């Protein structure tokens, strides 16, 4: 009898322990997925002004979205962001990190780190404010300095409908480059990789050859992490566009996230806004599947 009571107490205590550890996290997960499913539900209803209307109308608002030229401008711009926000950043980061590895001048390392990393501490709103002024066509910093150097610079930057998005993406690259460099650096600096590089150097392999056939294949997991993070940040981009151009000129620099905000909070088409939210979520979900699988395996093995 005594023995069984002790055992029951033990089980009770173990359960209580589990609850203390689990419950708070579980609560926030429930809220998170609750709001996600609520958003999905709203996207199938007919809620088009300030008052909620939960009557189901199926795909009506999704059809509305794809019938808007604006949606396709967004898709094009988001594609530009995904490609140009990720590829140049990654390649530049590999180049800079490898260059620092090859030429270890004293002091250069920590100088470059501080130089490239300070934007990581800044918000996109601040970065955007600074760069709006750098880019201003008439009195802006860049054009003024170029003029003082004697060049008749009339670069239109973000006021040119054709190229505005590219100038925005440049701000993004500027902001994330330092972050990308330290990720690449820390994956290059594992002891196994250093040994392999040394062995190859002794064998007389060239520096470029070492980069392509030894370094790059061995930092794949680091690159997967970096590319996934950059992909997700450029997919979700909102702040830079909001603060620098607010989608203009016209809707030339509009992106899905900004469209979602305008549709929901300015036009008050809540169902359409929810639809855009769902679309952004699905794209994000697809983009990080490789990374999620990798993280899952690493955690449980």
């Amino acid at each position, binding site marked *: 009898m005594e023995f069984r009571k002790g055992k029951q107490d033990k089980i009770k205590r173990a359960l209580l*322990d*589990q609850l203390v*550890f*689990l419950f708070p*996290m*579980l609560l*926030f*997960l429930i*809220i*998170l997925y609750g*709001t996600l499913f609520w*958003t999905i539900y709203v996207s199938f209803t007919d809620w088009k002004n300030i008052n*909620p209307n939960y009557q189901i109308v199926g795909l009506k608002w999704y059809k509305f979205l794809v019938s808007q030229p604006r949606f396709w401008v967004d898709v094009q711009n988001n594609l530009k962001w995904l490609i140009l926000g990720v590829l140049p950043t990654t390649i530049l980061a590999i*180049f800079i990190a490898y*260059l620092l590895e*090859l030429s270890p*001048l004293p002091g*250069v390392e920590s100088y470059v780190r501080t*130089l*490239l*990393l*300070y934007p*990581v*501490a*800044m*918000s*996109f*709103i*601040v970065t955007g404010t600074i*760069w*709006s*002024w750098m880019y201003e066509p008439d*009195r802006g*910093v860049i054009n*003024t*300095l170029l003029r*003082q150097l004697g060049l008749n610079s009339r670069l239109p930057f973000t006021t040119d409908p054709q190229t505005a998005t590219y100038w925005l993406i440049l701000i993004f690259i500027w902001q994330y480059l330092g972050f990308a460099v*330290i*990720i690449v650096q820390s994956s290059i600096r594992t002891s196994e990789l250093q040994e392999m590089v040394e062995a190859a150097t002794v064998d007389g392999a060239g520096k470029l050859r070492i980069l392509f056939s030894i370094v790059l294949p061995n930092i794949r997991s680091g690159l997967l992490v970096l590319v996934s993070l950059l992909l997700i940040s450029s997919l*979700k981009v*909102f702040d830079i566009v*909001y603060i620098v151009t607010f989608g203009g000129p016209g809707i030339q620099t509009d992106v899905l*996230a900004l469209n*979602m905000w305008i549709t*929901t*909070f300015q036009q008050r088409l*809540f169902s359409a*806004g929810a639809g*855009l*939210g769902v679309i*952004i*979520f699905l794209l*994000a*979900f697809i983009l*990080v599947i490789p990374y*999620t699988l990798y*993280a*899952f395996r690493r*955690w*449980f093995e």
Partner: protein
Amino acid sequence: MRKNLTLQILVFLTLLVLSLAYLLPVYVMITTSLKSIEEINRGNYLSLSLSPQFENYREVLFGSPRFRSQMMPRLLNSVIISFSVTFLSLFIGGLGGYYLSRTRTFFARLLFILVGIALYMPYQAIIIPLVIFMARTKLALTHWGLILAYLILNVPLAVVLLGTFFLSIPRELEEAAQVDGASKIQTFFQVVVPVSLPAYASVAIIVLTQVWNEFFLALSLASPKTQTVQVVMAEAKGTTLVFYNLQMAAALIAVSLPMLFFLFLGRYFIRGILAGALKG
């Protein structure tokens, strides 16, 4: 020998371009924030201010006819919100992360996937119910509205980052404590947390910076009394137009806190970024 020279030139050129691209914005930002508008109009953006206008900072912090949005109360809002979120998400995330790092059941695997997806959840996918909920419950009028909203995505982040670190702690420590009769909770707080303090510090810096810099949620859930620095910054950019000196002063105030962390706790800052990306 010749090859080495090419390399040195390449390094030098890279450094030159990077220095220009990264020093120019921050230099112009600081010098401009101290200039008068007349001085800016003369267009010598590279010169230092002849008579530093610290007045600009006073205007930005406490308001003036040229700069109506006062930064000071917003600065306080940002401090309250970001510190509360950091504290709570580290506390809850530590508990949850410990559970996930010590359990190998199907349920734990499922939870890990749910937490993992949460790391990449765009705010756009949850904002509508949040806004409705916060408006109905009037939570949006207090700091709790934004604090709760930020916790939804920062708890999972803390779970993963701290849990990754807990995985690397040798189990012998905990087993010894449990042989001595300590419960799991006691073991966690008396054995695991003390050896994990550096990890807590790194994750704290990451969460704090992220919440401080966040804009979308802050914009959508802001009420006049809970506006954050970023929101007022965006508002000021639209209303001050040509007062670049005030804009830059406001920008410097808006980055002050994360920048202090970066400058004085750089090691934890970098470790935090790496933890967020790679290992614990």
